[in-house]
């Protein structure tokens, strides 16, 4: 097996690796893992799996699919699930857990998570679901986090125009207006994503929700304790509308928002003259920047600031994938154990597009400053909240919320849209 980083070299926590190596010996056992990662992400993940295999002797077969949500539903319901499933949708996980297709991870893992992840309790609660009998338990292990509260920009465009990185929402809005006044267009927003069109707007709304209301409201919103058309939610939607529904603020006018593909929309940053100066998107977006764009030089990001006057701290919105055991296997348990070693995080951190709240990792192993800064945002967060649309039931989070947002930018009022979404909430 070719391991990317030779064992023992570099700043990695090799002790945790050798400890795991010694403790676990499952030579010849097999493990099937099903996950969302394809393409480059798959290569990255498989490079991590190589270490797991080297240490435990387990033969891992990883697979993924374009329609992995559908796939996992079919596989579990038909009774041929993989051993381990990795999914980015807590809503879907909740459904699977409720149907009894997922095994509880146990108290040990739960307490480990609480202790070792920064803001541990929020991660525990993220992995905790109501089992088939209604009793909650830890079913999913968060691994690989994305930060969503990021605004991307081109530093040199800012320099050329003489703009500063804003530190508060008020500043951000002022900057927006300033750019318009200078004859530019501030934002590039694209909601297009084929069948999932609309989801980037949900990130906006969630991010803004954390900035107009306290996190408890956010939680109540997610769990439908308050209706979707609660004034707080409507306010957040209207905040988004402030950016997206103003023709002058958005490249191509608000009409193009819903149709521009989210993958294309950051390109506006890099045209000359720039179509736009700002782009709100999660940490994965650089892979859609033009070829050869150097992060930190050609493009950079800043934390989507909070309102100075509202005093809600520095909330961070994020997302991530969760690992579940869908079959009882020794190897599967061992894999969860492996994920608890710092090395399982560091090895990926050292490559790219991986953030972790695990406190015991060596933050220097991040591949570049951008990643490190994102990691820092994660660590600096006073509040961390998981993407609400991923937490809500699929009918909303992967359905009416998306379409509602498209309708909203298409002209419907926030109240209307919110009421409609609320109506679609499954009873």
């Amino acid at each position, binding site marked *: 097996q070719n391991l990317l980083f030779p064992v023992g070299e570099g700043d990695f926590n090799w002790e945790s690796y050798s400890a795991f190596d010694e403790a676990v010996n499952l030579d010849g056992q097999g493990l099937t893992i099903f996950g969302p990662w394809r393409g480059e992400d798959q290569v990255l993940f498989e490079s991590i799996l190589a270490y797991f295999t080297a240490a435990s002797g387990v033969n891992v077969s990883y697979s993924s699919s374009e329609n992995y949500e559908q796939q996992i539903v079919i596989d579990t319901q038909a009774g041929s699930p993989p051993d381990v499933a990795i999914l980015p949708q807590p809503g879907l996980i909740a459904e699977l857990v409720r149907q009894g297709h997922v095994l509880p991870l146990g108290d040990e893992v739960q307490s480990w998570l609480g202790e070792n992840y920064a803001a541990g309790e929020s991660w525990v609660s993220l992995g905790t679901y109501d089992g088939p009998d209604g009793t909650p338990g830890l079913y999913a292990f968060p691994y690989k986090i994305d930060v969503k509260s990021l605004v991307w920009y081109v530093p040199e465009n800012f320099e050329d125009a003489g703009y500063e990185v804003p530190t508060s929402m008020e500043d951000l809005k002022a900057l927006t207006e300033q750019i318009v006044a200078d004859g530019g267009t501030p934002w590039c927003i694209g909601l297009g994503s084929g*069948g999932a*069109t609309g989801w980037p707007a949900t990130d906006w709304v969630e991010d803004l929700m954390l900035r107009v209301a306290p996190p408890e409201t956010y939680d109540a919103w997610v769990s439908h304790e308050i209706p979707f058309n609660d004034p707080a939610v409507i306010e957040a939607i209207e905040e988004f509308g402030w950016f997206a529904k103003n023709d002058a603020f958005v490249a191509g006018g608000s009409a193009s928002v819903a*149709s521009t593909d989210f993958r294309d929309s950051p390109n506006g940053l890099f045209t000359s003259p720039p*179509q736009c100066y700002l782009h709100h998107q999660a940490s994965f977006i650089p892979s859609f920047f033009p070829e050869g764009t150097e992060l930190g030089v050609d493009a950079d990001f800043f934390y989507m600031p909070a309102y100075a006057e509202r005093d809600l701290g520095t909330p961070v919105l994020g997302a991530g994938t969760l690992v579940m055991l869908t079959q009882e296997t020794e190897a599967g348990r061992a894999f969860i154990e492996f994920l608890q070693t710092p090395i399982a995080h560091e090895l990926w951190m050292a490559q790219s597009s991986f953030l972790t709240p695990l406190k015991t990792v060596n933050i220097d192993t991040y591949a570049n400053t951008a990643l490190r800064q994102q990691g820092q945002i994660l660590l600096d967060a006073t509040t961390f909240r998981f993407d609400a649309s991923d937490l809500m039931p699929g009918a909303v989070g992967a359905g009416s919320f998306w379409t509602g947002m498209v309708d909203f930018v298409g002209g419907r009022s926030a109240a209307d849209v919110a009421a409609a979404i609320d109506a679609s909430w499954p009873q």
Partner: protein
Amino acid sequence: MNPALNAVIVIVAGVGVCVSYFWLANLVLDKVIFPARGAHAGRNITRANRVRPWLFLFPALFFVGVYLAYPVFATLWLSLNDRAGNFVGLRNYNRMFSEPKFGESLRNNMLWLIVVPAAATAFGLLAAQLTDRIRWGSIAKSIIFMPMAISFVGASVIWKLIYDARDASLPQIGLLNAVWMQFDGGIGSVLMLQALPVIVLVTMALALGFGTWLLMRGLRGARVPQVILRLVLAVIALVLAGVALRWAWGAVVVSLPYGRPQQWLQLPFWNNFFLMAVLVWIQTGFAMVILSAALRGVPEDTIEAAVLDGANPFQIFFKIKAPQIIGTIVVVWTTITILVLKVFDIVLAMTNGQWETQVLANYMYDKFFRAFDTGMGSAAAMIIMALVTPILVWNVWNARKEMR
């Protein structure tokens, strides 16, 4: 083992098992169970012949039963249960009917059901007829067939590229917008985008009116089912003519947003047609291949007789060839109609039912795999299946007729 060798063995085994079933089953039937020998030879043969159809049919019935019929019943059952598995009667249907999205899907589906099979069959027939008569026909055929070889998702991607819209200040990479941007509201634009459609629509309305007149003319003396059928068709034709005229008027008074790139997939109502174009583009190849085989089966002497009777190529086509392949046209039409009911990939990939483009299949998919609402998903599936009933009746009628 070498993977290629492995594949070959696996292929041979798979096909071999299938072939040997038929061969052996026949052998057993004729030689062992009802041997055509001895005292009861005659009776045995008759018996064997009574069993044989079922022998031939068995694998097909088995597969169809297990792989399609059984799921249908399972689905029917599911549609009467909520997601927790409790029997709720028709409540899923009630809920579904009260959802505006469902109404929208049904409406759009109707549109799809009218436009796509008609357009694909018409284009397919045109292509089949014309390509058979020219030397480079087989090349043309291959090109028209090519979209068939592209998956639905791939096709959606291609067409997204065509419908793509950029800001007016940027070069358009969507072909349709690039063309659209050539129009500036001048005389050429008016001719192309207003006069031409008006002419086409008015012609269509006139043709439909004429059709109505033809239908009504032969009314007296016709049998009752005929009268009803004719009346229904006449009403439909009249309605369509009205629609065409309204659209023609719309085309006269419309002021087109020249100079602004259009989001084709977001123009309400019209976007349905842009989605349909994709399926028509794909399915025309299917229609063409099947119909061209049928056209070639039309006895040449009947065509020659028509030539001598003085029929022009159009009359030969419409009065001699088309009626003779009407069975095949029905088959093609049916197949495409059914495909229209089932295909959701295109809508899913291009709009996911947003901007009022939802269709039943995608609605069902949504309920099944997004909302995990198997009850409603199944109910939607049942509606889809209910929509084919007319086609079913039509085909049974046809089958009966030709067996007589």
